[in-house]
C-alpha cells in the first residue's frame, strides 16, 4: 500500500467512526434527556405524559404524607402562586429535603397529573440553591408584587 492509499483508508475509517459515533450519540441523547418543567407548565399541559421529565419547585408546607407501614410518601410541589403538583415517591428522601424548601424531582407524569418520582434531588449545601430551580421560581409571567412572599433558600 502506498502512503496515499493508507491515508485514504485512514480518512474513510475516521469518517465511518465519526458517523457511527454521532448516530449513537443522538440515539443515547434522545432517550436520556430530561427537560425541567415548572408546576405551572405541567398544569397548562405543556409537559409530556409518561416520559422522563424533571419538575422543580418548592415543597408545600404540611404537604408531606407518609404511609405508616412502608416508605411510600407523597408531597406537593408548588411555585407559591397556587400551581401545585402532587409527587409520589417510595424511597428515602435526601437529607436536605424539607418543606418550604426547593426540590427537583425526576420521573414521569401520569394521565391525571400525578408525578411518580424516581429520584428526588434537594440542594447539596445549606446555602446553595440550584440555579435552575431559582429560574423556574422566578421566571413565571407573574407580576413582581405577587412574588414578594419571603422564600428562604
Amino acid at each position, binding site marked *: 500500500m502506498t502512503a496515499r492509499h493508507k491515508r485514504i483508508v485512514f480518512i474513510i475509517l475516521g469518517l465511518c467512526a465519526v458517523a457511527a*459515533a454521532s448516530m*449513537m450519540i443522538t440515539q*443515547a441523547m434522545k*432517550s*436520556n434527556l430530561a427537560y425541567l418543567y415548572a408546576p405551572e407548565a405541567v398544569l397548562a399541559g405543556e409537559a409530556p405524559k409518561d416520559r422522563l421529565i424533571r419538575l422543580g419547585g418548592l415543597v408545600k408546607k404540611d404537604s408531606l404524607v407518609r404511609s405508616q407501614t412502608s416508605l411510600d410518601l407523597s408531597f406537593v410541589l408548588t411555585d407559591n402562586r397556587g400551581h401545585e403538583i402532587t409527587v409520589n415517591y417510595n424511597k*428515602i*428522601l435526601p*437529607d436536605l429535603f424539607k418543606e418550604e424548601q426547593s426540590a427537583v424531582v425526576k420521573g414521569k407524569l401520569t394521565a391525571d397529573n400525578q408525578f411518580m418520582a424516581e429520584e428526588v434531588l434537594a440542594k*447539596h449545601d445549606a446555602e446553595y440553591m440550584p440555579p435552575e430551580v431559582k429560574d423556574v421560581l422566578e421566571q413565571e409571567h407573574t407580576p413582581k408584587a405577587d412574588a414578594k412572599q419571603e422564600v428562604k433558600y
Partner: protein
Amino acid sequence: MIPEIGHFALVLALVIALVQSVFPILGTVTNNAQWVAMAKPTARAQLLFMSIAFACLVISFLDSDFSVRYVANNSNTLMPTIYKVSAVWGAHEGSLLLWGLILSVWAALVSIFSKGISAVMLARVLSVMGMIGVGFLLFMLLTSNPFERLFPIPAEGRTLNPLLQDPGLAIHPPMLYMGYVGFSVAFAFAIAAMLGGKLDAAWARWARPWTNVAWVFLTIGIALGSWWAYYELGWGGWWFWDPVENASLMPWLVGTALIHSLAVSEKRAAFKSWTVLLAIFAFSLSLLGTFLVRSGVLTSVHAFASDPERGLFILIFLVLVVGSSLVLYAIRAPKLRSTGTFSVISREVGLLVNNVVLVAMTATVLLGTLYPLFIDALGMGKISVGPPYFNTLSLPLGIVLFSAMGFGLFLRWKKDKPERLFAKVRWVLLLALIIAFLVPILFMESFTVKAALGVFLASWVSLTALLWVQEQGRSPFKLPLAIWGAAIAHIGMAVTVAGISLTSMYSVEKDVRLDKGETYEMAGYLFAFNGVEKVQGPNYIAQRGEIVITRKGEAIATLHPEKRNYGQGTMPMTEAGIDGGFFRDLFVALGEPLGEQAWSLRLYHKPVVNWIWLGAALMSLGGFLAAFDKRYRMVRRRSQKLTPKQSDALAATATKQEVTA
C-alpha cells in the same frame, strides 16, 4: 500580621511570575544567555513565595484568626486540627492558592530535574509555566484573595462544609490538583517544543515521566473522590456522571491517550503533531474543569459558591490559553513531519485505536456535560443528561478499547503479522472466555451477558498483561520498570472493569422501613435493627443506629451508621456503616426517622465494589513505576538527543527482545 505577610508574598510571587514568563523566553529570542539563565532561579523563588503565602494561610487557620474572612467562613475553634488544615483548600480562595502552590512545585521540580535538557528549552518551558502562574495569581489577587480581612471580627467562625470533614476528602483536592496542574508540564513542553520548531524524540522522552506522574496523581484524586462519594454521601453510588466528576474524568481520558501517544512519538517519531495536540487538550480540559467548578454554571455537589465575575475571568483565561496554543499549533503543525511509517497491523495502529477511543470517550463526556449548558444558554429549556446516556456510550467504546488493550502489548512496531499475533494470544483468549462463563455461573446468583462480557474483558486484559511479562524472557527482577508499570497499570484497569461490571450487575439495593427490633432479609443476610441513640462528637451531634447482620445464625458484623448534625444551619450528614471486604461490601445508611422508633434505612449488598478502587490503586502504582524507569534517567545523563536513526535502533532492540522471548 501573618495574613499581610501572606498577601505580600502573593504579590511578590506575581511579580516573580511576570519576570519568569517574560525574560527567559525573550532571552531565547535575543540570544541573551543571562536572561535565559533566569528561568531556574525565578521558578524556585516562585515556589518559595507561594509556600510562604500558603503557610501563612495554614497558620491563620491553625490560630483560628477570624479576622480573615476566608478563615471565619470555613473554620471554627471546635474543628479537629486535621480539618483546620484541610479547610485551607475547602473552599474557593484557598483551593486556588493550592492550585498556584502546586503549579510552582511542578515548575521548581522541572528546574531541578533538568539535567540534560538544553538551557533554551528549559527557559521556554519555565516561561510557559510562569505565564500560567501569572494568570492564576492575577485571578487570585483580583477576584478571590484568601487573605481578605473581615470587620468586625467574629468571636467564632462558621464551619467547614461538613461534607468535607472527612479524611478521604481532606486529601482528595490536593491529589486532583497535582494531576490537573501536572499536565501543565506536558503542556509547557509541547508549547516550548513548538516554539523551538523542533519536535524530536527528545521532547517526548522528556515529557513522558512528567505526564505519567501527573496522571498518577489524577488517578488517585479521582479514585479518592469516588470512594468518598461511596461511603460519605450515603447513596452507596460510586460514580454519578456529575458534571464535576466528568470535568475530572476528561483530562484523565485525554491524559491516558497522551501517555500512549507520547510512546509513539518517542520511539517511532510518528503521531508528532497529534501528541502535541493531546498535550494541549489535556491541560485545557484541566482548566475547563476548574472553570466549570468555580464559575457556578453547573448544578453540582461541587458548585458551592457562584460568582459570575470569577467565572468570566477563568473563561477569558481559558480562551487565551487554548486560543494562543492552538494558533501556535496551526502555525507550526504543518512543518511537523512524522517520519516513522507503519503498516495497518502494527503497534502504532494499536496505540492509534487507544487514542481514537479515548478521545471519542472524552468527546461524548464533554458533549453530555456541556450540552445542557448550551441549550440553557440558547433559552431552549433546561435539560439534564442522565447517567444512561454516558453508560450507553461508554459500553461500546470500552469494548473496543479493552479488546485492543490485550492485542496491543504484543504488537510489534512498524509491521506485524496477524497470524503471529493470534498464535500468541489464542490460549489466553480461550481461557478468558471460560472464566467469563464460569464466574457468573459459579459465584453469582444469575448469568447475565453484560456481566460475562465485563469478566471476559477484564480477564483478557489482565491475562495478556501477565503473558506479556512472562514473554519478556527475563527474570522478573531484572525487567525494566517500564514493563512492570505497563503490565500493572493494564491489570489495574482490568480489576476496575471487573469491579464495575460485577457490582453494577449484581448489587442488591433496598430502601426499607424498620421499627426497632425488626429484621429484614436480603441477599442471604439478615439485618436486625436495634434502634437509634444520640451520640456527641467533637463538633457534631449524631443519631447513631445499630444494625446486627447475621447469616444463617452466624454473626457477620455490627454496623453503626450515623446521621450527624454539625449545627450552624449546615446540612445533616449521613455516615454509612460499611462492612467491607474483598468479595463484597455490606452497606447500611440511616434515612429519616419515621415516627416513634421506626427509621427508613438503606441496605445494600455490593459484590466486589472495592475492586473499583483497588484497580485504580494498581493503575497508579503502574504509572509510578513507569515514570521512574531507569531509561529516562540514563537518557538524561547522556544528555544527548537521539537522532531518529538512533531511536529506530532503540525500537529495533526492543522488538528483538520480544522475538527472543
